[in-house]
């Protein structure tokens, strides 16, 4: 299975659960989605979104996002997200982090809703008919993504993948109909037979397909293996302030296969 074939399994209009920039983003897969001209995607931030969402939005792949925020961290605002919302071309369902975690946990457990502690005084519920105030408690409806997408440290021969402490990815995988994973390295055997590795595993029960993508999170990082390419991300943030700058970035780093994966 190649990353391109993985991207081919994702139909237009699908609801994709995506991690924040600090949590193992399948950037190579995102670049293939842009190359194959995906359209009408709906993105769910688990619980926030960053570079991957900004690229997909700028490339015209996205109809709607549900998220607690979209940000490039120290590199600032996500420019294509900001422009798309301000020009009215992107619909946003604003949420707050614990509500998204709880909505995925509801799907994980197969129940229709989940309580969250008070968010009294916030205007967020006014735009969320799927949330109900129950005294001080907020009841949020379950969210069932079509796909959870992320980049794992390892995939083994048994079809398990390892995400370590990034447990929001496990929750997203448990909640989603299918999980598609890119991975850094192949590993022999079955990680569930190793007591030290097993707690960081998302088991093959959830993983539909996986593709090898060395440095597949670039320009974001994989903790303990490689750091984020901060210089590249801030160059992106500057370039993407204008539509033309964004288009040049796409041509150089996404649409041209030779340069689209990480530098040597």
């Amino acid at each position, binding site marked *: 299975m190649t990353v391109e074939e993985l991207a081919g399994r994702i139909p237009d209009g699908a609801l994709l659960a995506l991690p*924040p920039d*600090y*949590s193992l983003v399948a950037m190579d897969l995102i670049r293939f989605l842009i190359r194959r001209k995906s359209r009408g995607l709906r993105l769910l931030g*688990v*619980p*926030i979104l960053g570079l991957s969402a900004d690229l997909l939005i700028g490339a015209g792949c996205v109809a709607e996002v549900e*998220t*607690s*925020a*979209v*940000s490039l*961290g*120290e590199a600032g*605002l*996500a420019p294509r*997200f*900001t422009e798309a*919302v*301000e020009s009215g071309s992107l619909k*946003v369902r*604003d*949420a*707050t*982090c*614990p*509500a998204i*975690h709880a909505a995925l*946990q509801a799907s994980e457990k197969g129940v229709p809703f989940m309580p*969250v*502690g*008070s*968010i*009294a*005084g*916030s*205007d*967020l519920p006014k735009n969320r008919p799927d949330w109900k105030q129950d005294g001080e408690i907020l009841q949020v409806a379950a969210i069932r993504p079509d796909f959870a997408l992320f980049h794992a440290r390892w995939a083994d021969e048994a079809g398990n993948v390892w995400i370590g*402490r*990034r*447990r*929001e*990815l*496990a*929750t997203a995988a448990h909640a989603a109909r299918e999980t598609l994973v890119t991975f850094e390295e192949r590993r022999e055997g079955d990680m569930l037979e190793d007591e030290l590795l097993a707690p960081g595993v998302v088991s093959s029960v959830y993983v539909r397909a996986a593709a090898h993508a060395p440095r597949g999170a670039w320009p974001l*990082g994989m*903790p303990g293996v490689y*750091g*984020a390419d*901060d210089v590249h991300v*801030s160059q992106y943030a500057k370039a993407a302030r204008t539509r033309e700058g964004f288009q040049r970035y796409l041509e150089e780093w996404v649409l041209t296969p030779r340069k689209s994966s990480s530098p040597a």
Partner: protein
Amino acid sequence: MGSYAPEELLACVIARLLEGARHAAIGASSPIPASGCFLRKVSDPSFRVSLQQRRAHNPFSEGSRELFDLAGQGRIDVFFLGGAQIDGAANLNLVRAEGRRFPGSFGSAYMYRAVPRVILFREEHSRRVLVPKVEFVSAAGDPAALLTGKALFSWQKDKRRFRLESVHGGASEAGIRELTGFDFDSDSPVKSTPPPSTEELSLLRSKVCREVAADYPDFAKKVWGIH
């Protein structure tokens, strides 16, 4: 006491606001609150600081929901929140204002309610940020303080009004009123924010800056010139 950067003064004010706290957590993109927390930690090793987005030494092992679960149980005493707009009733707006879109509410709506000591922090002190009424309420609650690049306010829960506690670096009360879009109480004459002590500056420039640089390299380079 020599000269100091404005960021260093703000970090010192934050460290002083942490008196008596056991555990502070820090969300996204907050290098000055992080500096203040690390400054507090070097003088009180039992004080715990948890950075949500730490790259190395991340304190969480249950993913990003663990921060909210800890807060829900009362295991976090202090959290920092900001806003594109903050109003005189201490409401925060991180979503939209004047046709402009901001990143979004993050966990603010929940953390403002769950954490007992919320410190509102925003470096920019202007009528654009400090407004009479926010356009959208991301989060509402009772803060412990509002710290800006120009002044420190306390919150009077009974009156639901801010009170000007001190001004930084020789600003005047009239000057602060000029830059603030909401009304607030104050003493006359208003106090001046105590500058960093020699010891505070020395700690910031030795131990604290290295801790901060690990997560906020651009900030550490700008303030302390370290890589």
